[in-house]
């Protein structure tokens, strides 16, 4: 494939300082994999700029998986920043990959990870910049014509995966294939099918039909969208067009995770990233069952890697990359049954070398004196973050976030005793059943936390103690017990924030609340069906992109797009439904049964908690019997 580098170089040189951070577009990073001879080529994309996308683990893992296949090569691609996009469009330069600077449209397949709803317009921007029509049906039409003229496979296969696939409909018409769940096995499987069927001269339709047989694969073109009445009657908004296409697509679980090597080849970027360190995934899945959390439902069952595996991977990773920080990543790292042992061993190994070990966030109820010392042992102390999410015990029970005030104060005391001086607490407003008392409870809890923190430090240090709170607006997510609940209106949110601010007296407490505009669009996208795809395309055609960037996001653009498409923005985000209502993602399954979600919603209403099945009894979410699998923990969790 031709390298577009000479043209990129000319752009960068000519633009000079007008193009920011040219490092985004050069490659040759340490650790990148080059397989120039491999005939089958796949490009994996994170739909944002290099510095946001390079840290993404899905891109890293899946590129490694595909590169491990004989005859296949995987490269990365990111969306250029707006200043570069403008120049590229002016000079007719299409989107290019990182490793070989080849045009994205020349690859056999393009994989796009969908990390959050606001990435939607960037997905379209990326496809368009690559010279690929954004709609799958338009691509199919072009390909049929081209195939008739003897040029099949005019465009790459466009594949998507990641968290948003659990409510895929707003994205569905833009993708040929959507992958549900873990892609380590599924992706190479699908690419092998594509490769061998291309060799046999199969049509794109035949290839997609075959792919739909692979578990965890949703091919939107093979389904019809029905109207609401029909959907409620049938139990699904999407109906397969053929008997051998599944009515419900079930997510893939990678059974080999726990025993696989925790070491993943890593690219070491030159550019400064948002988070730039060696990542070791220590476990997958979380069974705490917080009822607002989509990740907790999506990644079950819980699977831990062993301490030996993790420690060896960290040591090898530091040697090969030269990073000065290791991050032990997962949804809830402190829940790992061997976490204290792991931290102790790593602290000993890295002592005196200026290398620190970090944990993305800590569970309040797992963070005691022991943990405080182990995490501090790395030698670096920034602020600690915890997420109580709700201000009163009642509401915490409703959302099944089983931490008590005592847990919070013990954690804070242990932390400040061990030398921390700042802590940040995350809360949400707009949770189901929330009252003003709950909102005031946040302020009161913050005051009590500040008092506990100050108690734990020397009198002369008390001035340095800082407690801050970050408040988010609750967004109901698919595949959670709260999926039927609507978001509260922006006016109501503003009113509750005013109540919250009034309940905080001390000036040492900082409350961070941003205009929830972004959360409103998130809610609309996370609850909406196929019609929202039209809204996404309309918004994009009117210039919406980089919606996750404050300076580019425009709520009005989205409202206008909804109006133009005849979609009631507020209704989609705010409507609440009974739990027997069939939602637009009923054809996509995380393995957790709807019955379980309904039961959890009922228990939430009554404020009854459900225990974590890795600590206690099975809560019958349905996933283990259905997949013939189980949680895999290294030692008993306590």
């Amino acid at each position: 494939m031709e390298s577009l580098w000479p043209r990129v170089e000319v752009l960068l040189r000519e633009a000079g300082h007008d193009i920011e951070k040219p490092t985004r577009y050069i490659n040759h990073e340490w650790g990148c994999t080059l397989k120039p001879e491999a005939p089958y080529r796949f490009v994996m994309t994170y739909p944002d700029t290099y510095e946001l996308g390079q840290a993404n683990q899905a891109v890293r893992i899946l590129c490694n998986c595909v590169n491990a296949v004989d005859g296949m090569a995987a490269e990365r691609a990111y969306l250029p920043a707006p200043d570069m996009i403008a120049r590229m469009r002016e000079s007719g330069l299409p989107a290019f990959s990182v490793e070989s600077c080849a045009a994205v449209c020349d690859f056999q397949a393009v994989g796009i990870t969908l990390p959050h709803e606001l990435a939607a317009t960037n997905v379209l921007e990326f496809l368009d910049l690559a010279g690929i029509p954004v709609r799958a049906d338009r691509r199919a039409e072009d390909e049929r014509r081209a195939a008739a003229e003897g040029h099949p496979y005019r465009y790459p296969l466009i594949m998507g995966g990641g968290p948003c696939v659990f409510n895929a409909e707003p994205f569905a018409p833009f993708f040929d294939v959507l992958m549900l769940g873990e892609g380590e096995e599924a992706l190479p499987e699908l690419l092998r099918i594509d490769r061998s069927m291309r060799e046999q001269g199969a049509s794109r339709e035949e290839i997609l039909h075959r792919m739909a047989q692979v578990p965890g694969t949703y091919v939107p073109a093979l389904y019809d969208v029905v109207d609401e009445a029909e959907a409620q009657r049938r139990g699904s908004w999407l109906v397969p067009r053929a008997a051998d296409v599944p009515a419900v697509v079930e997510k893939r679980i990678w059974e080999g995770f726990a025993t696989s090597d925790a070491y993943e080849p890593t690219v070491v970027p030159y550019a400064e990233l948002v988070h730039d360190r060696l990542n070791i995934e220590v476990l997958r899945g979380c069974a705490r069952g917080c009822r607002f959390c989509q990740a907790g439902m999506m990644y079950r069952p819980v699977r831990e890697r062993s301490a030996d595996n993790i420690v060896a991977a960290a040591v090898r990773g530091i040697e090969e990359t030269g990073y000065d920080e290791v991050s032990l990543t997962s949804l809830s790292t402190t829940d790992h049954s061997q976490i204290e042992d792991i931290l102790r061993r790593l602290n000993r190994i890295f002592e005196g070398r200026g290398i620190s070990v970090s944990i993305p966030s800590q569970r309040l109820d797992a963070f005691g004196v022991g943990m405080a010392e182990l995490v501090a042992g790395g030698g670096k102390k920034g602020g600690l973050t915890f997420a109580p999410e709700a201000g009163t015990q009642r509401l915490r029970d409703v959302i099944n976030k089983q931490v008590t005030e005592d847990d919070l104060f013990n954690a804070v005391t242990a932390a400040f005793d061990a030398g921390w001086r700042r802590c940040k607490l995350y809360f949400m407003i707009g949770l189901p059943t929330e009252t003003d008392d709950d909102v005031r409870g946040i302020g009161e809890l913050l005051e009590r936390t500040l008092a506990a923190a100050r108690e734990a430090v020397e009198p002369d240090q008390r001035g340095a103690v800082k407690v801050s709170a970050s408040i988010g607006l609750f967004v109901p997510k698919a595949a959670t017990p709260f999926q039927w609940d609507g978001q509260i209106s922006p006016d109501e949110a503003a009113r509750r924030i005013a109540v919250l601010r009034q309940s905080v007296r001390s000036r040492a407490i900082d409350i961070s609340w941003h205009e929830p505009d972004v959360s409103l669009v998130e809610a609309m996208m996370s609850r909406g069906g196929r019609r929202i795809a039209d809204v996404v395309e309309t918004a994009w055609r009117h210039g919406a992109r980089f919606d996750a960037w404050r300076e580019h996001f425009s709520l009005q653009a989205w409202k206008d797009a909804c109006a133009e498409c005849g979609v009631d923005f507020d209704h989609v985000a705010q409507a609440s439904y009974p739990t027997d209502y069939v939602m637009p993602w009923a054809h996509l399954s995380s393995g957790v049964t709807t019955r379980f979600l309904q039961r959890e919603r009922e228990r939430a209403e009554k404020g009854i908690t459900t225990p974590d099945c890795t600590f206690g009894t099975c809560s019958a979410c349905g996933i283990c019997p259905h997949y013939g699998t189980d949680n895999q923990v290294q030692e008993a969790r306590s």
Partner: protein
Amino acid sequence: MSDFTMRVTYAETGRLVMLSHLEVTRALERTVRRAGLPYAVTNGFSPHMRLSFGAALPVGVGGLAEVFDVVLTEFVAPQQALALLRQASPADLMPQAVRYVTRDEKAASVAYPFCAYRVEFSASVVRDGRPLLSVPEQITVVRKKKEKHLEPADFLVGRVRFGNVGDSGSGIGDVEAAAPTGVEGSAAVRGAEAVVPAGVRGVAGPDGTPDAYTAGARGWMTCALESKPTGSLRIDVLVQAMCDAAGAAGQAIRPVSVMRTAQAQDAASLGELAALATESGHGSGRF
């Protein structure tokens, strides 16, 4: 406990000339760690590697003889240290030489205020025996929101030479600033281990290996700048001003490669070292 301060000379070439100084420092730190060298860390709360760097290169400017210092806890033979560093380095950020510095030597950032540059251009810069580019009398830069007027003559050392790629000869000198001119001829510089001529205090890059990237460059310029306590004139600023002036006069000339080829303690040493950067091209900032 004794420290050993090692000064590493490295080249920043190819696409990596687009890295900012901070990005380069981060990359070098990781290289040292990958090399497995016994680096010393600072005391205190947040221990980190003890690195110090030479004068920064602007984004887009490369260097053949850049320096950084790293403090080691043990002595490692220079040959071995260099080999370990090279194994752990990307091709375009490649260590060339290694030596231990003594306490009486100046810090890397201030040791070599005299710098030689080679710039390559998209178009010919000499026609009918006359240069198409000239050094402006004054350049206006904005520093800390204030305009400052710099006179290139204050910073230029020796002659500014121009030539067209492919012409033989040593080019045409234009501006005569301070008296000493470059020494003709070349001193021996080998690939992996730079051997600097005796008595010369400075560092120079590897000798010319014709570079694929240089193809496409049509004109070249060499010059030397001194950075002064009161400030410096950046090479890219000077080149931009020269090209802008040519553009205003109807000549479309733009730089395709800007490289710092040598750094030295004083002008005389620089003269000797700068002669090592032959006119037939060497590691390039054309990426």
